[in-house]
């Protein structure tokens, strides 16, 4: 275990940023956002960032390749830039789990190499949550915010941050900055961290969504929920916007589009949303005609289809972003509570 006092945090960030690109959460007019660290940047105290940390591995837009055309000939130009080491500081336990969820999609054969390269080059400093919000329900998915996963796990107390490397990648990075952040030998580290864990566990029990359960969901429940009458009332006021999917750390749908910039053609990938009416539209037809079907797809995927393909793992981490960001305040918690309860009006 290593310790850095908060008054020396900037020094620590500077040291890490001297090794690789470092991103930390900072406060902006749009809430906390991860930004590249610069001297003097102040780390946000917010519980979580508005956008999730998935952006680092699966950015909202990325240029996949470019083309040059001349007459009938085509040339493909490699424009890849994802092979650069970076570190993200302050990722919460829920977002760390979201990387596992995304890995199973993007790294299953054949692996998405753009994502894979970023994963290999990213170092994750996770940060335990000392004060969870009323919208948090990571515990529902077996996530423990007192013991986040990550390359280096951090605990923030009133005056210091304690860090422990959990992977080789994390240990190597910490070793490279050991002159700034030394081993906390014989220090108060262990007791301070344990006290933190204790507080977090107690607070988790008080959360209003602490008892939310996944018991009724799982990979074999398509028939049970697909025609549930509750979908109608749950989806009836859905605007069909993409807010939930875009702030969601596990939503992974994307589009690939070409863009003729005038001086060459770019093929880029961008986030897409199953909530959008055009998502499945073909010249020949539209398998999901109404918002009910599109709304259902999103939640069936998280609670049934994804677990069916991934050993029962759900594609939700309980971060609560959709709870605070949905324009009409509809969200996965309401879906989980109302499905399977029999009756439209429960929605």
């Amino acid at each position, binding site marked *: 275990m290593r310790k850095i006092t908060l008054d020396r945090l900037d020094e620590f960030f500077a040291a890490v940023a001297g090794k690789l690109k470092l991103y930390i959460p900072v406060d902006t007019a749009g809430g906390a956002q991860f930004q590249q660290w610069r001297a003097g940047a102040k780390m946000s105290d917010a519980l979580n960032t508005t*956008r999730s940390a998935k952006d680092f591995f699966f950015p909202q837009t990325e240029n996949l390749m470019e083309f040059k055309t001349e007459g009938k000939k085509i040339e493909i130009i490699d424009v890849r830039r994802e092979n650069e080491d970076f570190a993200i500081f302050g990722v919460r336990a829920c977002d760390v789990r979201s990387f596992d969820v995304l890995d199973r999609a993007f790294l299953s054969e054949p692996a998405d190499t753009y994502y894979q390269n970023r994963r290999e080059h990213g170092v994750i400093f996770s940060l335990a949550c000392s004060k969870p919000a009323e919208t948090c329900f990571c515990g529902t998915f077996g996530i423990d915010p007192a013991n986040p996963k990550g390359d280096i796990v951090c605990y923030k107390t009133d005056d210091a941050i304690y860090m422990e490397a959990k992977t080789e990648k994390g240990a190597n990075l910490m070793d490279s900055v050991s002159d700034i952040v030394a081993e906390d030998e014989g220090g108060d580290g262990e007791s301070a961290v344990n006290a933190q864990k204790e507080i977090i566990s107690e607070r988790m029990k008080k959360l209003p969504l602490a008892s939310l359960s996944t018991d009724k969901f799982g990979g074999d429940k398509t028939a049970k929920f697909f025609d549930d009458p509750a979908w109608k009332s749950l989806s009836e006021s859905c605007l069909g916007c993409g807010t939930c999917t875009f702030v969601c750390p596990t939503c992974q749908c994307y589009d690939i589009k070409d863009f003729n910039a005038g001086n060459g053609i770019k093929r880029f990938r961008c986030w897409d949303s199953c909530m959008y009416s055009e998502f499945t539209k073909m010249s020949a037809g539209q398998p999901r005609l109404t918002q009910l079907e599109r709304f259902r797809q999103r939640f069936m995927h998280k609670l049934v289809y994804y677990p069916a393909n991934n050993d029962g793992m759900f594609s939700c981490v309980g971060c609560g972003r959709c709870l605070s960001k949905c*324009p009409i305040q509809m969200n996965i918690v309401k879906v989980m509570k109302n499905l399977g309860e029999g009756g439209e009006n429960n929605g």
Partner: protein
Amino acid sequence: MQEITRDTLISRAKELLASGEVDRVYGWKRGEFCYDVTPALFTDAESLEKDFEWGDFCGANLSKYLVEETRKSEGKILVFMKPCDTYSFNQLLTEHRFDREKVYVIGTPCAGMLDPKRIRDHAESFTSVVSDENGVTVSTLFDGDVKLDRSEVMPDRCLNCKSKKHVAYDELFGEDGGTIASGRFDEVEKIEKMTPDERFEFWRGELSRCIRCNACRDVCPACTCEKCVFDNPNSGVENKAAENSFEEQMFHIIRAFHVAGRCTDCGECSRVCPQQIPLHLLNRKFIKDIDGFYGEYQAGAEVGSRAPLVDYTTEDIEPSDAVKGGDENA
């Protein structure tokens, strides 16, 4: 004077359902917490009693839902509307977006809504909010109760409320108010005073946060095109994040142009923006300019009024006077 409560509205809705005057009710529905209120359709007394909500967090403007809902059946819909919502309602009628005969409007009084985002700035992990004339008491999970002034936790659109007057209703609860000379153009004026470079930087900074979720468009009562150009894959400006960020900025500016003269300044765009971009300021700039060039005009104040931008009079300002080349405020 009779005090208007949730029960007042529920019992009137039940009466109208029971008499057959209406066969469904568009209102607001309770959620998990005090603030996560969802627009919802009610069809029976039982669900109204169980789930209907009326209070500080019923900010959602229900008028746009009527466009689709009125098409679904011949029956009449009861809808509850705050004063600002009724302007959108009228504007939609002006644009012939639904049949007035299919809607029964109950106007409800409004003391200004509360903004969960602003409450969170003062009180983390809050679970309940009690408000009265003395202010707002917020209970939190870990920090006890926090007392706040109402003005500290109201959204900008309510702090700068333009009207407490219902411009459309079949039945009104509470006493009607009047229009208010609010400071809603103050922020616009600040931006106008910037140099073009500062202004460009201001908007570039704000709009750079856009994630192109389209929530602003999808909630906007002025955006009711059957098929939005940004949803058309053949338009070349389809609805997703663009390869270059300039397109994102264009999206908002094009949208502001498209709703100019029709935007009632309901503020829903800024309410729903997950990135807290003050989108309503773009629309207010148009409203302010239209007021300045053509005389005061409030979209939705009257059904059937012709907005200055789609009307012509010989007194109209010459375009060359409205926008002077090189004008810093252009």
